[in-house]
Structures are given as C-alpha cells and as structure tokens.
C-alpha cells in the first residue's frame, strides 16, 4: 500500500465526517463550515489522486477548486449576514464581513 493510498483513505474518512456535519446542521453556520472543509478535502483528494494515478499534471484543477471554495464561502456568508448581495459597503459598516 503506497503512501498515496493511505492519504486517500484518510481524506475519504474525513470527507464522510464532514458530510455528516453538513447534513446534520444544526445551524446554517455549521453547514457552511462543513462545506468549506469538504472543499479543502476535495482539493487534497484531487492532488493525491493525481500522484496515485501517476499523472500529477492536473493540479490546475485543485487551484480551481480552492478558488471556487473561497468564493462560495464568502458568497454564502454574505448572504446569511445580509439576506442579499446588493449592499455596497462604502458607508457605515453595512456589507462588512
């Protein structure tokens, strides 16, 4: 069993636990948190799978995942906090995350 296989199993087990937390909730913040962690675990899984399959060139995908994960977290947080995305935050503290 190679080291990549060990890492894959560890990541899959962690993904399962994160998924359960995302489903169970109870607050909306728990879900955001779990999905953010799930995204990071997916980034790891893709990188490790590249090495496992012997073709590690496809790490561009990991970068896209990390990027999408970040934007998604910010969007969801902003939505939860302000119930919308339209408010500019030039004045006062509205729109501040």
């Amino acid at each position, binding site marked *: 069993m190679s080291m990549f296989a060990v890492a*894959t199993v560890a990541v899959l087990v962690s993904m399962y636990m994160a*998924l359960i937390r995302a489903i169970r909730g109870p607050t*909306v913040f728990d879900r955001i948190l779990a999905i953010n962690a799930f995204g990071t675990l997916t980034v790891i899984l893709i990188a490790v799978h590249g090495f496992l399959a012997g073709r590690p060139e*496809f790490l561009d*995908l990991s970068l896209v995942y990390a990027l999408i994960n970040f934007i*998604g977290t910010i*969007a969801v947080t902003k939505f*939860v906090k302000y119930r919308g995305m339209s408010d500019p935050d030039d004045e006062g503290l509205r729109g501040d995350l």
Partner: protein
Amino acid sequence: MEDVIIISLLLFMAIAAISIARMHNLFAVVMMTGLFSLLGAAAYVVMDAVDVAFTEAAVGAGVSTVLMLGTLALTTSEEKPASPKHARSAFVLVVITGAILVYGTLDMPSYGDPNAPMHHHVANRYLEASEKEIGLPNVVTSVLASYRGYDTLGETFVIFTAACGVLAILGRSRRPRRRDEAETDNKPEVDA
C-alpha cells in the same frame, strides 16, 4: 484503489442527494447542491475526464451556487409545505419511473467496456487523425473547437440567449431604488 475512491464518491453523492430531498430550507439545499457538484467533479477527475471536471467545478459548484443565492435573495428561502394528500401516489409514481429508468440502463454497456459502441464510432478517427490534422496535444479541445465546431457555436449562442433573457426580464428596475432616487431621476439607465 480507483474503485474505492469512485464507490465512496458515489456513495457520498447518494447521501447528499437524499439529504437534499429531505430538506426544507432552500438555502441549505443550495449549499448541498454545491457540495453535490463538487463531488461530481471529483468523480470526473477520477474517471480521467479532466476538462469536464474543470467545467463542473467552475460552473456547477461555483457560479451556479452564487447565482442561486442571488435568486434566493430576490424570492424566499423557505420551501412551501407540500400537501400530504398525494404523498403516497407520488411515491408510487416515482418508484415506477425509477424502475423504468433502471430497466433502460440494463441495455447500456457496462462501465469502462472497451467494446462499447462509443469507442468504435468516430472516437478512434478523432484520436488517430487529430495529431496530424489539427496539431494540438489536447484532443478534447480539437474535438470541441474544430471537429464539433457547430455544436460549440450553438452552446455559445445558448449562453448569449440566456444572458439576453435575464436582461430582458430583470435588466430594468420596475421602480427606482430608494437610496439613490435623486440620482436616478437624472439618469434613465438604472442597473445591469
């Protein structure tokens, strides 16, 4: 090892899908849909469909989640309670439809079958001739942009039409914004 990854990812997808069906808060549903897309994209990577995974990650998990959140911001984020009257008949209907669909898949070639019709139609010609006809290392790009150029042109027009539709429906505010009413009086063009 690949099988272990694929099977776990599909299992996670099934768990996520069932939980989506049982949720009533649409906001949570949007987030779980994003997670589902992320899992799907990971499964595409494991199956070596890197370009598809790229699109699925960027569009399915990223932009569509953000756009759905934008929609929720304009409407409501709580599902209306379904009437329990038709629950049983609906369940029977769903089971029958599902059984028919599963029956339909029995005729399909099994996963990774080298004798599947897909591998004997035009794919071989593309794979063999692409290098000297097009001269690009990535065959997906040469099929997408050159051999199947018409299809991609159609897809571009679909996106163009979608943007036009959104602009036609939402592009102009029905009423001017309260905050900058004074400004909008001077400028007729409001947003988008």
